[in-house]
């Protein structure tokens, strides 16, 4: 099997709102420039481009072609797009390199979440016959999921708040993220409900952002990066869209994806970057993957400190790779989610080699 590694990662600062275009591509251009500079490459060194974004977020059809403009597609480029988190574009790029057609790929995701009413826009991804017509919003849906776990005794409000507090404390060392600082759990628990039983700290902040990751195969990866983050497994699975018919307190698709990506071995994972946009979802994910306390979760601050739509999942892969490229970890795991209440889940495992 072709050896493929992540060799570069950049993301735009997580901010509540930018003044850029609704499609948000201005945030992308500096990411490309940073990667070209760090890797000593140009646009023409990239064999395949793949992006993740959403027309509903941009309020216009074919919004991703504006991003192709920001690449500069002259002479023509080899390009594709997914209407999902860019982690799924990463999967497509990984497959593309696996075919042997190309030996490098640049994956990017972007979106200006602040342009519309995000929780309403996200209802567009639900069953279009019987759920989306009710305008059931993403935060309320997560609230229904959170209460199921609370009622079942699977987690407590204190444990949920502890996830938020740990994320914000970790984000203190990340200048590019949106929420950080040391917070008192009791103070968090005294705050009002946003969507009972969810409080503000249980929900990822609305974030504008963009991210980009460079992949390369074999010797090309070794040329570009001193310590590439080799991808030893990637898999993604989906659960039934009928969320009233399944147990929302567990994530079978994450379990299946993790088992396939790790080969059943979750030991020795130094760092896991998990994409749970709500505190209780991180608890579901930890259990679904089977992570032990030996693994550091979301040292970047995670999505609870900044959750740019359609790039936050790709950022988990980027941060998990960065921990290896920087020499801070030997084996890492990245998780990304797309859709409502953890419907679709992707797991990637990365390793450094000495």
């Amino acid at each position, binding site marked *: 099997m072709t050896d493929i590694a992540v060799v570069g990662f950049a993301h735009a600062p997580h901010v509540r709102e930018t003044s850029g*275009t609704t499609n948000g591509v201005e945030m992308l251009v500096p990411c490309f420039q940073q990667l070209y500079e760090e890797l000593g490459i140009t*646009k023409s060194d990239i064999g395949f481009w793949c992006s993740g974004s959403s027309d509903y977020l941009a309020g216009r059809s074919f919004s991703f072609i504006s991003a192709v*403009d920001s690449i500069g597609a002259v002479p023509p480029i080899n390009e594709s797009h997914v209407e999902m988190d860019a982690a799924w574009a990463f999967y497509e790029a990984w497959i593309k390199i696996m075919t042997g057609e190309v030996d490098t790929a640049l994956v990017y995701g972007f979106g200006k979440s602040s342009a519309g009413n995000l929780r309403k826009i996200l209802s567009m991804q639900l069953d279009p016959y019987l759920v989306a*017509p*009710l305008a*059931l*919003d993403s935060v309320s849906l997560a609230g*229904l999921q959170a209460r199921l776990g609370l009622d079942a005794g699977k987690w407590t409000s204190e444990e949920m708040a502890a996830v938020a507090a740990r994320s914000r404390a970790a984000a203190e060392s990340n200048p590019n993220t949106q929420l950080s600082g040391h917070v008192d759990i009791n103070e968090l628990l005294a705050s009002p409900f946003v969507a009972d039983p969810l409080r503000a700290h249980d929900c990822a902040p609305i974030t504008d952002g963009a991210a980009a990751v460079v992949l390369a195969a074999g010797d090309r990866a070794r040329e570009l990066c001193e310590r590439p983050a080799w991808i030893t497994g990637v898999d993604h699975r989906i659960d039934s869209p*009928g969320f009233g018919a399944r147990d929302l307190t567990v994530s079978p698709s994450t379990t299946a994806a993790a088992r396939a990506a790790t080969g059943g071995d979750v030991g020795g994972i130094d760092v896991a970057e998990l994409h749970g946009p709500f505190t209780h979802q991180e608890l579901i994910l930890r259990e679904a993957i089977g992570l032990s306390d030996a693994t550091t979760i979301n040292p970047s601050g995670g999505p609870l400190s900044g959750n740019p739509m359609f790039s936050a999942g790709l950022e988990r892969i980027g941060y998990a790779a960065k921990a290896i490229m920087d020499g801070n970890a030997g084996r890492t795991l990245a998780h990304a989610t797309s859709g409502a209440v953890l419907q679709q889940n992707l797991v990637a495992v990365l390793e450094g080699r000495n």
Partner: protein
Amino acid sequence: MGKSAVAEKFSNEPLSAPLKLQFDYTRSVGPTVGAFVTALRDRKVIGARGSDGRVYVPPPEFDPNTAEPLTDFVGVSDAGTVVSWTWMPEPIAGQPLTTPFAWALIKLDGADTSLVHAVDVASPAGMSTGMRVRARWAQERVGRIQDIACFEPGESTGESGPSSESEPVTMVTTPIDLDYMHSASAEESFYLRGLKEGKLIGGRTGPGGKVYIPPRSANPTDGIPTKEQVELPDRGIVTTFCIVNVPFLGQRIKPPYVAAYVLLDGADIAFLHLILDCDAANVRMGMRVEAKWKPREEWDYTLENIEYFRPTGEPDAEYDTYKHHL
């Protein structure tokens, strides 16, 4: 020729304006969802029995375990038990209620899965897991999920409508209504501000660069950002065109008429506009045209300030002068 830097620079500050998206999705419902919404029209709720023996409400089109079509329909109650709930303090337009309400997963009596809907209670204190709720039916029912207006505390009244003689529901229409604050790019913004003043402002990356109108953020061949504003004259040539003979919904001009690419003098890219004030049959490649502006008091941030282009009567441009812009 014509490539002059703009004396009065227009601001790059992004222009923004509210953008309202409204459209209808019209979907065919098929045999399973169709049966469910047809029953709702008659004040009845039905589910379908899956291969695992469970009664799914609402019925999915295909069995989640075997992927077989689900059509073994089972009538269930219009009352049930709250399995989970959350509170909506500030309802969003388009949701079932305009006053604060609860969302709930509701397991109807006779069902093994939960349906999501709104529950009308005054405050979160009125909600609890395990509470009993019943459907509040809409006065007018057309065969859609909103035929249940919402749920309310209580038990089923046992009433249902008479079975309708009408044809089964085959389609549902879902209106979509989304609001954005749309922002233009810095370059689009100086272009639009120019139009408001009756000026055509393109952009280029710098000396020797190509002039684009509308301006791009960067030169697509090398990615160098646009740095310079360039004012262009309101006249140029037709590079290519088509004669529109077909009427279509929303058409504002009576066919036949000409839609053409107009290359302004000094520009390196043509844009699409109308050619009027002449017989469509006389329009040709290389023909010299000029803008016909609307009255100044009607100018806004739009290329519609130019109603159309019309022939100037000057000699046609030589093919070699524009062949690289086709």
